[in-house]
């Protein structure tokens, strides 16, 4: 993931996050050719719930944008609904729905007559997983469908459902 080598990314991540890594998959290596292998970056609260996820490798600008958005939306949820996890979850659900719809159409949904923004967004969101779309859009749909999931509950869906990678503890095989 080249984005992680960017100094701006490193500075922002070092300021707002404590970082760690975990091997969840493997790949096969033939000389300099790699077969398989992938990466996913999760932005989490200290209680191990996931604010946002970036499935697959992205460039530094995209990584920095998504990381900043994760920080902003988490701070806004805590500011709007302090000490109310259910409302914070609803806030993040709407935020991910807005990001999904905005990234796909470029238009920002607005609340209609007698309908809140959350209801409007929920009405516009697809009811099934948007397979085949951009990985980041799939990630936003997943976080809209189940906001603030625990990392242990969602990482299998991201790794196998979005990235199509097998979860394994097998070591990397080199030929």
């Amino acid at each position, binding site marked *: *993931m080249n984005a992680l080598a960017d100094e701006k990314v490193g500075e922002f991540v070092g300021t707002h996050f404590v970082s760690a890594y*975990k091997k969840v998959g493997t790949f096969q290596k033939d000389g300099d050719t790699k077969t398989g292998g992938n990466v996913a970056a*999760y932005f989490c609260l200290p209680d191990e719930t996931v604010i946002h996820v970036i499935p697959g490798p992205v460039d530094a600008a995209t990584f920095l944008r998504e990381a900043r958005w994760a920080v902003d939306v988490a701070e806004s949820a805590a500011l709007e609904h302090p000490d109310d996890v259910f409302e914070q979850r609803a806030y993040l659900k709407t935020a991910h729905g807005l990001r999904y719809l905005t990234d796909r159409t470029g238009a920002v949904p607005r609340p209609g007559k007698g309908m809140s923004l959350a209801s409007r967004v929920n009405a516009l969101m697809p009811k099934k997983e948007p397979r085949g779309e951009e990985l980041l859009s799939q990630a936003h749909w997943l976080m809209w469908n189940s906001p603030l999931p625990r990392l242990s509950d969602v990482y299998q869906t991201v790794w196998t459902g979005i990235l199509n990678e097998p979860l394994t503890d097998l070591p990397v095989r*080199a030929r």
Partner: protein
Amino acid sequence: MPKVTLPRLRPARAPRRPTDSEPPDVPTTAPWVWPAVVAVACGPFVLTAVGLAVAALRPPPRPATEVVAVPVFVPAAAEEPAPAAEPIAVEPRLVEIVEAPPPPAPPVAEPVKPAPTKPARCDRFGTAIEFVRSPALAFDRAARDQKLVMVLHLAGYFDDPGFT
């Protein structure tokens, strides 16, 4: 057989009756003999009387009364349990002794201190980001530092550039 002549016993002479002209026959005993005789004769009686008097004035042991007195002292001993309440007052001391163990608790907390020092050992693995060695440490440290957590899931070994 030779004739044995026994000595002739002289008949006892009758006491001579004193005459009127002659002073009566006064015993020739010493004047201190009679008091001594009286003392010897009365001594046992006096000693017996003194012994009886001492025995009478002496508080009788009354063993039967002592047997009765034992139960009398029992209630007295029962009253002493009030001081026996003092052991109850000692119980707080036992609590203090129990409180003494908490000092060992700090040593338990001390092993936790190395944990914060371990996260300080971060590696970058060729990136611009410092990584702690496990997600669990990252969540603990983030809760302490009021930060968020970034967990990178990947295939391969992040610490080996050839296998990432």
